[in-house]
């Protein structure tokens, strides 16, 4: 008799929660000791933090919310900041929901274009140097991230160029900038601009330019690695079909490279976001700058812990939001690989 091929369902895992705990947490004496040790220290540490947080003087945060958020922005302009922030937050929420619901990228792009135009209009009345606090942190990060992307792509492509002059220029730019700490770049650039043009360029603008120059080099290097991670056969196939070099780059290489680059790119952007605190050195008062200014007031002299814990939590929330976004993006773009 011929044997018939029968597909069986996979064996079911019907172990109870207790069995799971036993298997994963108390599997032998070493694991049991580790489990108990970790739980005990977590509880002890959590209690410590909780007792401190309950007794801490949060006045420095709650009474000065406006300073933390927008710094010394004149009162007449504050509503513009609220509106801009509200619009961006709403758009971000809509995007997260929209991506889940697989809304077309074009629709979301149109939404963001509208938001960007409104935000630019809202900010058009405000002088850049009047911004401070979390707003300054976010504006610095957003502008330098968005500007370093296109520049980084150009530099990264230039570094793989066949033309020696372009390659040499891009390589020396990347290597030159990577050899300088960001804080040096900011100081040097600010002084350099002052010498040339006095106060013609606002300090916030100088910080943006300095951070963009700095970040573009790193983004360029990430781009180069991403571009080279796409096999030579891909370009060959595209060129053989008659696509021009730039078309092969745009339609074939970059989309695949971009997917490989997301983790490194987001890492770079998170670090750039946190590096905005270095602009204190050229006299800007970002989130951390506001904290330091508050600590100088007699009534808050002893609230050092509260100020820095609050700053830590804010930075942590924004950085983890970026990590989460990158994971979602990676999963979405992974479609072709499955």
């Amino acid at each position, binding site marked *: 008799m011929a044997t018939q091929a029968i597909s069986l369902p996979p064996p079911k895992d019907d172990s109870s929660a207790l069995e799971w705990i036993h298997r994963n947490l108390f599997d032998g004496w070493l694991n049991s000791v580790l489990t108990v040790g970790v739980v005990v220290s977590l509880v002890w540490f959590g209690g410590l933090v909780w007792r401190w947080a309950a007794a801490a003087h949060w006045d420095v945060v709650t009474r000065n919310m406006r300073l933390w958020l927008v710094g010394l922005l004149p009162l007449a302009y504050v509503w513009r900041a609220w509106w801009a922030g509200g619009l961006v937050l709403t758009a971000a929420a809509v995007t997260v929901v929209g991506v889940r619901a697989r809304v077309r990228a074009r629709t979301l792009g149109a939404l963001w274009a509208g938001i960007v135009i409104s935000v630019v209009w809202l900010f058009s009345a405000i002088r850049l140097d009047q911004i401070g606090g979390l707003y300054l942190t976010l504006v610095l990060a957003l502008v330098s991230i968005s500007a370093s992307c296109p520049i980084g792509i150009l530099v990264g492509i230039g570094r793989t160029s066949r033309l020696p002059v372009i390659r040499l220029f891009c390589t020396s730019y990347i290597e030159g900038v990577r050899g300088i700490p960001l804080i040096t770049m900011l100081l040097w650039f600010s002084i350099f601009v002052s010498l040339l043009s006095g106060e013609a360029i606002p300090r916030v603008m100088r910080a943006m330019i300095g951070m963009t120059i700095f970040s573009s080099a790193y983004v360029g290097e990430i781009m180069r690695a991403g571009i080279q991670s796409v*096999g030579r*056969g*891909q370009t*060959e*196939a*595209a*060129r*053989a*079909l*008659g*696509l*021009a070099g730039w*078309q092969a780059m745009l*339609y*074939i290489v970059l*989309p*695949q490279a971009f*997917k490989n680059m997301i983790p490194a790119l987001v890492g770079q952007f998170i670090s750039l976001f946190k590096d905005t605190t270095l602009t204190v050195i050229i006299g800007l008062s970002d989130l951390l700058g506001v904290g330091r200014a508050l600590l100088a007031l007699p009534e808050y002299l002893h609230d050092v812990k509260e100020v820095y814990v609050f700053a830590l939590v804010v930075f942590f929330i924004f950085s983890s939001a970026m990590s989460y976004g990158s994971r979602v993006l990676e999963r979405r773009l992974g*479609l*072709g*690989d*499955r």
Partner: protein
Amino acid sequence: MPDVAAPIIVLEDVHKWFGRLHVLKGVSLQIRPGEVIVVAGPSGSGKSTMIRCINRLEAHDRGRIVVDGIELTDDLRHIDAVRSEVGIVFQSFNLFPHLTALENITLAPITVRKWPRPRAERAARELLAQVGIPEKAGTYPAQLSGGQQQRVAIARALAMQPKIMLFDEPTSALDPEMIQEVLDVMRGLARDMGMTMIVVTHEMGFAREVANRMVFIDEGVIIEEGAPEHFFTSPKEDRTKLFLSKILHQ
């Protein structure tokens, strides 16, 4: 008969070096429209390099290559003109993994030929039907078998309506049971469409059946060429005999 037609591909004393390595040592070959040429030879003999020179994925260093009246030089317009008339199928498929089968096929007609999307998609679906996988239009390459991927790659090359198709060991990366489905598509191209084809392959059964002419290359030189019936039964050169005895007695 193709015999009277002027050659569509002319190679004259073509030389190619990779660094110090002399891979093509004066190759001359003429191919007439509608001819199917099968190129055989040991690995590293320069056969892939030769066909890659014909659409200038490699630039030859000496000699002349003329494709459909256009000489291949450093002039980019000539290269683009030739590339839009010559399709190539690679050993490793080289499908674009981030695009569906349909998008792989429509990309070049839309971006290079400026066809409107509906027209390109209609043509692409016809091509997918021609290579026998009309139901795979929305599938990504990673979800296709090797044989299906190679058939999409053939459809992708055909979408540009080339006069000449180059095949660079199209079945060497395939599992045995998938080789036939790809060879069947190639047979159809040769018989039903009268496509001019240069095929680098070790599939001697296919060669015997489809080729108008066999070309045997070793160490960068054409050792022997001729009709398959003579080539397989009474080869003139010793090196050809040695190669055939190795490859036919597997």
